[in-house]
């Protein structure tokens, strides 16, 4: 049964991908990428990757759609129609695809437990993680402890990307300068949508609470810093969609926001350094407490918190800098 579900969803996915390619209306395309991400997240759930599905749903259908739409509102909504399909490109794509398909004939079949992927590190992690780390969610233990260096690097990449976006979009041509000229009070806020405003008053605290749950429950079930950060950011984005950007900026001033971006990364690196000073190696959390698993727990908690803070603030400040920009 699971196979049939998997195949159906994959067929839907292919359908959406073709539609995205054929459409020239960029707005509709962005909306469809949201569907695409939701479908992809469903497939990840079918394939047992619950943590990944969590992230893909939050990132792909939420943040990514919002960012694409923000870009479209600053640029154009319609692609220049092409007269015919680009045959040269089609040929290249078909040839590459054909070669890749030929390559798959030697691949291990779907779900084969004898596949090379399942022969080396994976089973080792599955075997020793419960006793060595003591965290039920193996994805968390691999993410935060065994491959802590990787995750530190990824967090640094997110930090760098945020800096790049801020550098590109922050200076000159901001809406603040324009709004002093033609001050329309809260034109951006959805004043007239009363039902939405009342509902969001109930709903946003729930989102933030759920974000905290995901952050601290990540050891035991699907969740963790990355997912919680995105959910938190989604809550703040909803607030600024409903109440206008200026109000959201009052609640979280950009200075605080940018400070927190750096703070999260520093918390992560600081945990690594702390374990270094307590007679361990860099990011070897077992040095943090008397008992090894207890130390691992503290370490994972701290670095997940660091990741969560960085991701949440990075996503929020990216959204702020996109939607804070005036259409030229």
């Amino acid at each position: 049964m699971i196979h049939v579900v998997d195949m159906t969803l994959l067929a839907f996915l292919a359908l959406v991908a073709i539609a995205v390619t054929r459409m020239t209306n960029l707005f509709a395309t962005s909306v469809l990428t949201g569907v695409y991400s939701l479908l992809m997240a469903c497939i990840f759930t079918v394939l047992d990757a619950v943590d990944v599905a969590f992230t893909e749903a939050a990132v792909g259908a939420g943040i990514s759609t919002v960012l694409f739409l923000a870009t479209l509102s600053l640029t154009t909504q319609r692609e220049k129609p092409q007269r015919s399909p680009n045959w040269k490109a089609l040929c290249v794509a078909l040839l590459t695809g054909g070669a890749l398909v030929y390559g798959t004939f030697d691949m291990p079949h779907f779900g084969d437990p004898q596949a090379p992927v399942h022969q080396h590190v994976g089973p080792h992690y599955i075997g020793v993680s419960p006793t060595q780390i003591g965290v039920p969610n193996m994805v968390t233990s691999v993410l935060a402890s065994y491959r802590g260096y990787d995750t530190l690097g990824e967090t640094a990449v997110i930090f760098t990307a945020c800096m790049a976006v801020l550098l590109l979009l922050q200076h000159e041509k901001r809406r603040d300068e324009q709004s002093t000229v033609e001050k329309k009070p809260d034109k951006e806020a959805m004043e007239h949508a009363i039902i939405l405003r009342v509902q969001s008053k109930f709903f946003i605290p729930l989102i933030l609470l759920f974000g905290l749950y995901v952050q601290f429950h990540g050891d035991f079930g699907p969740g963790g810093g990355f997912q919680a950060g995105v959910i938190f950011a989604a809550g703040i984005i909803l607030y600024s969609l409903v109440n206008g950007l200026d109000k959201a900026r009052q609640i979280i001033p950009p200075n605080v926001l940018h400070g927190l971006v750096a703070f999260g990364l520093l918390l992560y690196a600081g945990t690594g350094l702390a374990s270094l000073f307590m007679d361990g190696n860099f990011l070897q959390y077992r040095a943090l407490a008397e008992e090894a698993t207890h130390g691992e727990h503290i370490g994972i908690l701290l670095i997940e918190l660091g990741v969560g803070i960085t991701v949440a603030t990075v996503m929020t400040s990216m959204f702020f800098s996109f939607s804070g920009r005036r259409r030229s």
Partner: protein
Amino acid sequence: MFIAAMIGVLITMLMALVRALSGPTVFDRILAVNMFGTKTVLFIAVLGFLSGRPEFLDLALVYVLINFIGTIAILKFVRFGKVETA
């Protein structure tokens, strides 16, 4: 029994998808996408029971939240981004 529910949800997803792909107005698409989102929530919930491990319902919660935020963002863009509605 879960299989029947799963088939129902999948069929609904397909029909919403067709509407989302075919339009004709922007609002039809948004409506269909929103409906598709709620159906993915049901999908996750039913899938958990179907595969015998219904612990991952947190996922479905995220889907509800994100689906709502996505719809509101799209609508906001429709209102302030001067979208061609056809």
